[in-house]
């Protein structure tokens, strides 16, 4: 199999920070949408990526940086041939991501046996093709990937390289 290494190298499309203040997830999703506008995502994929970015950024602001405005959330948008990847990094270090380990169950919630909240991680996982969490010291990073085309195997291979 031949491959063009230059083409497979992730290309950084945008890198920016937002202050850890409630509501800044909307700044993040707008910036990511603008950066990924020409990556070949369908409208549905773009909407799902925006929702995932917003949820991950909310988690970073609330659970990672504890709403301390002076601590930034770092966001980067990258692409390869077949995928878009977004990394969202806070300074919250290792933690049980994110107190949302319980699987949200609408019936339990309606019966008052589960809190109404707790949808964030569930939404995140269902919106994108891949989600990975890593921690290096205080830096806690969520990496989201969305394949933009090609067959699944090929798309997954490129997503792994991001």
């Amino acid at each position, binding site marked *: 199999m031949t491959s063009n290494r230059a083409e497979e190298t992730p290309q950084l499309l945008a890198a920016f920070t937002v202050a850890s203040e409630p509501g800044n*997830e909307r700044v993040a999703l707008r910036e990511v949408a603008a950066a990924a506008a020409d990556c070949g995502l369908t409208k549905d994929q773009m909407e799902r990526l925006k929702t995932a970015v917003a949820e991950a950024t909310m988690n970073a602001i609330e659970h990672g940086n504890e709403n301390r405005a002076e601590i930034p959330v770092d966001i980067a948008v990258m692409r390869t041939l077949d995928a878009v990847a977004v990394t969202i990094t806070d300074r919250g270090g290792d933690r049980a991501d994110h107190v949302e380990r319980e699987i949200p169950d609408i019936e339990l919630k309606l019966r008052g046996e589960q809190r109404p909240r707790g949808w964030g991680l569930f939404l995140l996982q269902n919106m994108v093709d891949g989600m990975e969490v890593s921690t290096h010291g205080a830096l806690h990073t969520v990496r989201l990937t969305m394949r933009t085309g090609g067959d699944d195997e090929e798309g997954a291979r490129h997503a792994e390289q991001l």
Partner: protein
Amino acid sequence: MPSSCEVDVRRLPGTVVLVIRGEIDSSASQPLQLAYAGTLGPDMATRVVLDFTAVDYMNSTGIALIVGILAQARAEHRTVAASGLSEHYRQIFEITRLSDFIEMFADVDEAIAITS
């Protein structure tokens, strides 16, 4: 954080429509709950339509607020319908299974026509 969510209440025979505008996030809690509370009373409608036509953003906290309204409505023996959801938020209602408990309509006229 100031809320960009506004809710108007439209009363019809047997049905009350909450017309929601703006963003449904944590800041929407008060306007949503106040509007819903305003629909309660001895002669309250038994059907609540949540109109999302003018909603441009909803996050997981907003989903939780909708779950809360649904739970309260069910406790009061009311049914809840949704109108005007974008395709993306319809998808989210299906993923979260809100759609198992909230009937979804393309627009508010369609939601109202079902009951008239």
